[in-house]
């Protein structure tokens, strides 16, 4: 009891020195990451983002796995991976991190989590002191990448307190209290690395960009995640505010509906790809807070952006292609037609991501200039409508293309015959073949090459077009430093966080 009370006093002393309130649109029930238990929905994101939990490996800026709680790994064979854990790490519950603890945690993860069992494909786990051996059911080249996913945060499962949703992690911070709208953090005195410097961190959930803006302006919060693009201009004064941003693999892209007659026309698909002003979209409509995309992956990936080629904005060329294909404006209404059929594209999107309606409206105009009429249907009911293959021609959405830093994810979810998100029923036998290869290829270099080939196929088929990548920005009070966004969007609060007096 004595120990405890002195501990408290000390922390109070610290917290009065410096504290930090962090407003984020990334935390909350509607993001399904409320709470810190990594085994529940997306709560692992919160666990890792706010410095409570850590994964075995972590991504670097190039989205390649690096050691974190684990120091190294090696594949014993296609289906067996041996991981060596870091020494001297303790959970905040007091238990030491050893292979058994990790095994307990991962086993619970695959028992109750919805995505992990499928991703990790684990058959069994062996624990021996600090050596963890994972057997997968099938060869899983992206196992290590998946272990970087926040659901892989390692917590002491024996110490999980369901009542107040307290987890015992290994991170630099410990949660004092957790609710659906707020997390209150204090430093972890036993942290294995550099100790946290801010005595009291509050992560507060915001659901409205304007509220976030106002709160930063009034100083009620000192840092923001998810500020609306328009608001960045208010925080240009570098004496008072600091802005840090990075590209993520969240991509705004369209997929065509291969069941649609008009879309089956290659010229139309090509014209679509040529008729979207990506530069204008990124530079003006997103205020430069994005990056023009070519393929699904941004520049910082080995197999990203410049490795593939796609049409860039060229209305004249688009007009010519359409003309050559017989699409001409015969009745002078500005819309091309062919065989009595007007060139009308039904563009399905949703307003949940504020960038999407902007993209739709911008494309609507630029396509109109080349004689394509775009009927936009921006509705929160999009997931129902897209099931009706006769109701749309282009579906434009946002997706995290490489949450694990690995290219396979995008193709398996969106481009293959049996992909869950291949709403337009696109298929290309060549792509299917390459995808099979990719799923068993372990060599990163070769995986990159495969990924580039596959991207090029879908781009050449004009089955997909990629407009831009999201730029993640964190704006803080200028007294705050060490809070930088990461391309993976997984890491925010760490022991680097400092608040100057």
């Amino acid at each position, binding site marked *: 009891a004595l120990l405890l009370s002195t501990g408290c006093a000390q922390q109070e002393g610290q917290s009065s020195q410096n504290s930090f309130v962090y407003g984020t649109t990334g935390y909350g029930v509607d993001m399904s990451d409320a709470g810190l238990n990594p085994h529940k929905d997306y709560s692992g994101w919160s666990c890792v983002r706010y410095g409570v939990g850590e994964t075995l490996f972590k991504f670097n800026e190039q989205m390649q796995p690096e050691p974190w709680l684990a120091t190294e790994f090696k594949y014993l064979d296609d289906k067996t991976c041996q991981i060596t854990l870091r020494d001297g790490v303790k959970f905040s519950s007091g238990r030491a991190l050893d292979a058994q603890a990790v095994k307990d945690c991962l086993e619970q993860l695959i028992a109750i989590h919805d995505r992990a069992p499928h991703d990790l494909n684990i058959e069994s786990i062996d624990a021996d002191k600090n050596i963890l051996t994972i057997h997968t059911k099938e060869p899983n080249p992206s196992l290590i990448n998946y272990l970087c996913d926040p659901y892989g945060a390692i917590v002491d499962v024996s110490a999980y307190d369901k009542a107040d949703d307290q987890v015992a992690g290994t991170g630099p911070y410990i949660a004092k209290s957790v609710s659906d709208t707020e997390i209150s953090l204090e430093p972890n005195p036993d942290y294995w690395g550099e100790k946290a410097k801010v005595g009291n961190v509050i992560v507060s959930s915001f659901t409205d*960009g*304007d509220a976030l*803006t106002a709160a930063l302006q009034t100083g009620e919060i000192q840092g923001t995640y998810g500020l*609306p*693009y*328009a*608001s960045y*201009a*208010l925080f240009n004064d570098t004496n008072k505010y600091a802005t840090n941003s990075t590209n993520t693999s969240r991509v705004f892209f369209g997929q065509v509906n291969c069941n649609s007659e008009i879309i089956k026309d290659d010229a139309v698909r090509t014209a679509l790809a040529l008729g979207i*002003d990506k530069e*204008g979209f990124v*530079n*003006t*409509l997103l205020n430069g807070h994005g990056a023009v995309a070519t393929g699904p992956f941004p520049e910082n990936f080995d197999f990203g952006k410049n490795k593939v080629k796609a049409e860039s904005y060229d209305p004249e060329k688009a007009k010519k292609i359409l003309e050559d294909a017989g699409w001409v404006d015969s009745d002078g209404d500005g819309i091309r037609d062919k065989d009595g059929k007007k060139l009308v594209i039904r563009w399905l999107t949703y*307003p949940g991501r*504020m960038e999407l*309606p*902007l993209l*739709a*409206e*911008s494309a*609507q*105009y*630029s396509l109109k200039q080349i004689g394509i009429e775009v*009927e*936009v*249907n*921006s*509705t*929160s*009911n999009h997931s*129902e409508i897209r099931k009706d293959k006769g109701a749309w021609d282009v579906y434009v959405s946002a997706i995290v293309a490489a949450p694990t830093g690995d290219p396979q994810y995008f193709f398996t979810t969106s481009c293959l015959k049996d992909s869950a998100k291949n709403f337009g029923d696109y298929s290309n036998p060549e792509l299917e073949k390459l995808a099979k290869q990719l799923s068993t290829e372990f060599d990163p270099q070769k995986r990159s090459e495969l990924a580039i080939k596959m991207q090029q196929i879908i781009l050449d088929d004009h089955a997909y077009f990629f407009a831009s990548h999201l730029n993640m920005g964190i704006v803080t009070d200028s007294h705050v430093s060490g809070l930088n966004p990461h391309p993976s969007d997984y890491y925010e609060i760490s022991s680097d966080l400092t608040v100057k007096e």
Partner: protein
Amino acid sequence: MSVLKNTSPKLIVFSAAVIILLIVAALAPLIVPHDPYAQDLSQALLNPNSAHLLGTDRFGRDIFARVLMGAQTSIYSTLVLVFFTSVIGIFVGVAAAWFGGIIDSLLMRTSDVFLAFPALIFAIAVAAVLGGGIQNAILALVAISWPKYARIARSLSLEQKGELYISAAKVGGASDFQIIFIEILPNIIGPLLVTSVLDIGTMMMELAALSFLGLGAQPPIAEWGSMMSDNRNLLQIAPWTVFGPGLAIFICIAIFNLFGDSLRDRIDPKRRKK
């Protein structure tokens, strides 16, 4: 001309204003100074200036042109909406009050159900069953807004019900229908008229609010409510993007309200000064 003689000058002025508003709205496509749909990203978010009276939006479109163009969608759809909502609601309310008994209970409990039923669920249902579009948005809003009028009309009618002139009408062989429309209605129309012109503004915003369900105006159609909410993030950076349509709504509401007031004064014989 003889009609005008009995009409107060105010009513003439305000009805003229309403008519002008409606004409401007109808002719908007012909009188816009710029193409309201023409985007020019290099001209985005310009301050109001001589070329762009109300500045430009983030697509570089002229806001004044869009406000003019938006008049069409906003005013006509709101008027249709308010008209149907109030007519249905008033009829139900007066009928409930007049018939009383089971009919009253039935009508009022039905209106309770519609009142209690979350509007959004209804809108989703309409969107799902009938699809998007402004007509369906109007339908959804009519379906959920009439109970308000029903309750107001009912409470006003209850006061009138015991009046002797109703008895006289009954003895004069008036049917229930006539009592409702010819006897009671003129006596309660004042406050109801006020309610419905007030609703013009509210309904404009509600129409805009439904656009995220795909109900209502879809891009690039200009519509005041959506213009305001779409540009809401820009309030501090480019306030004109919000103030432009806001001003339009204000003018529109002021005109309709003043018109409503003078109409109300005109309907009430005791307020009419010859």
